C-alpha cells in the first residue's frame, strides 16, 4: 500500500495554546480517511495543517508532514495548495463569478486564460462533481444563486479543476440536507479512484459509509487510527469504543 501523506510527531499551536499533540499517522494513496471526534478535538486544525491553511489564521506547527516523501512544511504554501485542495464546511462559491468562472477560478487566477483550454476542464470537473446536468444550461449564472447542495458540489468542482492529488474536506455535508448529503457521499466514493481524500465529519454513520480508514481524535490527540471497519466494530481503545457507541461527545 502506497503512502500519500505521512504525518510525524505533529504538534499544532494557536499562539501558545497547543491544540494538537504529537500526531503520527500514514494516509494511504487513493483511499478515503475519515477524521472523527467530539467538537474541539482538533479535527479541523489537523486537516488545515495538511494544506497549511492553519498558518493563515495565525497558527504554527512543529513536526513533519511528508507528501510523497517531501516535507510540505518546507515547501511554498501556494504550490502546495494546488496539490492539496480543500472543500469547506459552508459552501463558499465566489459570488461575483459565474458558475463557469467559479470552476475556472483556480486556473484563471494562476494564468490560464484561454477559454478553449478552460471549457473542457470546466465541463469535466462539473461532471465529476455530478453537477453538470443541473447547470449546463446556465453556466453564466452567478455561482451564488444555486442551492446550497449545488453550491457545495460547485466548490468540489472548483477544487478538482486545479487537479490536486489530495482533497481535504472539512465537514462538507454538515450544512446540507439528506439528499444533498447522499450526493456528496456518492461523489466521495467516485473520487477516491483518482484522489486521496481526507474528510472531517461529525456524523459517524457518514464516516462508516464513506471511509476506508478512520482516525479518532480526542482532546488534541490521535487516540486510534485503523481500518474503518475495525474502528466501528472492534476498536482496540476504550475511548474510541465509547465514542463510536455514542456514550460521549
Amino acid at each position, binding site marked *: 500500500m502506497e503512502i500519500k501523506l505521512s504525518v510525524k510527531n505533529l504538534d499544532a499551536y494557536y499562539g501558545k495554546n497547543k491544540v494538537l499533540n504529537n500526531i503520527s499517522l500514514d494516509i494511504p494513496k487513493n483511499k478515503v480517511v475519515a477524521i472523527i471526534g467530539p467538537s474541539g478535538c482538533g479535527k479541523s486544525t489537523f486537516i488545515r495543517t495538511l*494544506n497549511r*491553511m492553519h498558518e*493563515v489564521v495565525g497558527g504554527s506547527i512543529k513536526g513533519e508532514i511528508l507528501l510523497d516523501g517531501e516535507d510540505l512544511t518546507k515547501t511554498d504554501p*501556494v*504550490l*502546495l*495548495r*494546488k496539490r492539496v*485542495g*480543500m472543500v*469547506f464546511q*459552508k459552501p*463558499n*462559491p*465566489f*459570488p*461575483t463569478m*459565474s458558475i463557469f468562472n467559479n470552476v475556472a*477560478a*483556480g486556473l484563471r*487566477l*494562476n494564468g490560464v486564460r484561454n477559454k478553449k483550454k478552460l471549457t473542457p476542464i470546466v465541463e469535466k470537473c462539473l461532471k465529476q462533481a455530478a453537477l453538470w446536468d443541473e447547470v449546463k444550461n446556465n453556466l453564466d*449564472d*452567478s455561482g*451564488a*444563486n444555486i442551492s446550497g447542495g449545488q453550491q457545495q458540489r460547485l*466548490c468540489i468542482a*472548483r*477544487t478538482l479543476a*486545479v487537479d490536486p492529488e489530495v482533497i481535504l474536506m472539512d465537514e462538507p455535508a454538515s450544512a446540507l440536507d439528506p439528499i444533498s448529503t447522499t450526493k456528496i457521499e456518492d461523489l466521495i466514493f467516485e473520487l477516491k479512484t483518482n484522489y486521496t481524500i481526507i474528510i472531517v465529519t461529525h456524523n459517524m454513520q457518514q464516516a462508516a459509509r464513506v471511509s476506508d480508514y478512520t482516525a479518532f481524535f480526542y482532546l488534541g490527540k490521535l487516540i486510534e487510527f485503523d481500518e474503518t471497519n475495525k474502528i466501528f466494530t472492534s476498536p482496540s481503545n476504550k475511548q474510541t469504543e465509547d465514542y463510536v457507541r455514542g456514550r460521549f461527545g
Partner: protein
Amino acid sequence: MENSLMNSKYFYYKRKLTSSIMMSLTFVAALAAIIPLVFIFYYTISKGVTYLNLDFFIAMPKPVGEPGGGMANAIVGTLILIGIGGAIGIPVGVMTGTYLSEFGNNKFGFMVRFLTDVLSGVPSIVVGVVAYTMVVLPMKHFSAIAGGIALGILMIPTITRTTEEMIRLVPHSLREAGLALGIPKWKTTLAIILRTAWKGIATGVLLGLSRAAGETAPLLFTALGNRFWSTNIGQPIASLTVYIYDYAKSPFEDWNQQAWTAALVLILLISVLSLLFRIITRSKYKTN
C-alpha cells in the same frame, strides 16, 4: 389569578403604548431629517431653473449687466478639478483601505487608521492652506493642479475608511477559498476580495468625489477661479463652487440668480455621477 391576569393586561397596554410613542418619535425624527433636504431642492430648483438652459452649459460668463451667458468654463473646471482629485484620492484611498483591512493589524496600521481619522476631521480650508504652501508658493501662481491636490487629500479619508470597512465585510471564507485553490494572496485580494467589495468601495469613492465637488474653501487660494476658458491644469481654473460663492455675494440680481443655477447644476452633476457609478458597478447577477 385574576389579579395577575389584570396585571399582565395592564403591562400589555403599557408596552403597546410605549412602543407606539417611540415609533412616532422615530418617524418625526426621520421627517425632520429630510426637511432640510426638501428645502434645499425646493430653493435650488425654483430659483435656479430660471437660467437653466443650454446656454448655461455651453456659453461663457457675460460681464455684469449683460444678460444671459453660462458657466461652461466652471462646469469643465469642476470636472477637471475632481478628475485630478480622484486621480490622487482614489488610488491612494483604495490601496490604503486595502492595506488596512488585509495587512493592517499592527502598530503601523493602527497609526494609519488614527491619522486618516484625524485627516477626515481637518477643516477643508486648512487643507487648502497646505496645498497653497506646498504647490502654489513654489509654482508662484494659482493652478488647477493645486486645487486638484487639495481635493484629492480631502477624498483620501472617506475612500480609505469605506474601502477598509467594505473589504472587512467580505466573508473570511472567500479568502480561504481563494488561498486553498493555490491562488497567491495578492491575487486573491485583488481578484476575489476587491472584486466582491467593489460595489461598496465605489460608493465610498462616489462620496469622496461628491464631497470634493462641493468644496469651495480649499479652492479659493489654490485653483482660484478663472473668468475665461481654460483647461490648462498649470493655470488657475474656474469651478462651480467658487462661482456660486462669488456670484451669491455679488450685488447684482442676475448674478445672484445664476449662483442658484450653478448650485442646481452642481447637484445635477453629482446626481449624474452617482447614476453613472450605479450603472458601472451594477452587478451582472441578481442578488438574492
